[in-house]
């Protein structure tokens, strides 16, 4: 999944996987922090925004 997303031209880092048990609260916080930072760095994903239909 990740490979093909990146292959297609989506920035690495937009899709991240993590395995966290419900008992691993600290890990969860850390991962969320990391993901947020990474995505903030990338900025908003404008590639997937549809432009309004052109006037014909």
């Amino acid at each position, binding site marked *: 999944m990740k490979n093909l997303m990146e292959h297609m031209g989506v920035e690495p880092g937009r899709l991240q996987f993590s395995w966290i048990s419900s008992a691993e609260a600290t890990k969860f916080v850390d991962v969320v922090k990391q993901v947020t930072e990474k995505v903030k760095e990338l900025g908003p994903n404008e590639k997937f925004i549809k432009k309004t*239909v052109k*006037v*014909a």
Partner: protein
Amino acid sequence: MMKIINIDKQKWAGGVESLSKSYRLFGPVKDVDCHNFKELKQGEQPDLSYGNTKLSPKSVVFPPSEAMFTYSLDESNPEHHILKDVPKDYSPRAVLGMRPCDAKAVSLVRMNFDTPEYRDPYWMDAYEATTFVGLACENPCASCFCTSTGCGPYNEEGLDVLLVDNGNAYIAKALTEKGEKLLASGGFTDAGDASAVDAKKAAAEAKITAKIETDKLSEKVIMDLYDAPFWHDVAFACINCCTCTYACPTCWCFDIQDENKGCEGVRMRNWDSCMTPLFTMHGSGHNPRDKKHQRVRQRFMHKLKYFVDKYQKGIMCVGCGRCVQQCPVNLDIRTVSKTMNDYVAKS
């Protein structure tokens, strides 16, 4: 009165340049490996050396996706949920160098969009804004069969101007007032001579050897053809893609869809195709055409029988050969037409 103008090829590009000041121009341009009709960019010239375009120029008046209305779903907007017209540009436009078969197709399709009861505003407004400049076909493809569809490489129906390539010049026949106006605004004013046209026309027609057999279709009974046993065999190879219907200059079916983005949305129409099961699927899930042979039958019956009976204007096919060439599994309308034409119901 038909005016004949001589256009020296040296002056053609300059004329196109002048036309672009008063028209939005559409013409054949080379994509990666084929030609297609596109809106010409500033300074861009149509490439009139093309054989045939992959897609027909029907998109000039009937875009694959077209906005019809916009609306707001935001209840704080006093006009929420009320359809608003979309601003449209119906300033004069011109198609340069379309094939006579595609032009005839436009006039056939017009019968669908302009009826005594209803006038489709989008198609008709675009149509009326357009001047159709044809280019007679000198080198038809092997799969062309226009001469047996009531059309031909020099056919004038549906055109405002017909250009005939005559070596160093184009012989331009202005067929309508619209056509005359276009020629004038391109600065094409040299009087011409059409005497060479008939011989060239005969030569071009002689090059077309492929035929479609349709002479007995109108006498057939709809129910006989509908219940004929050959449809399963005809349809077997079909993969039910929309290639034939999208490539076809005479196919006009469309779907209407609402697309929302946040609280704003647009009601749009998109090309649709009788080849897909979704085309006729009822809200309840019932589908009167859920089997492949039913859909294939619909397509051919529509083109070769229903249309024939409904309008008495011949078949809904101009012989451009696109569906024959592009079909991934070689379903050939000429073969099917022959099968239908030859069919005699057992009594």
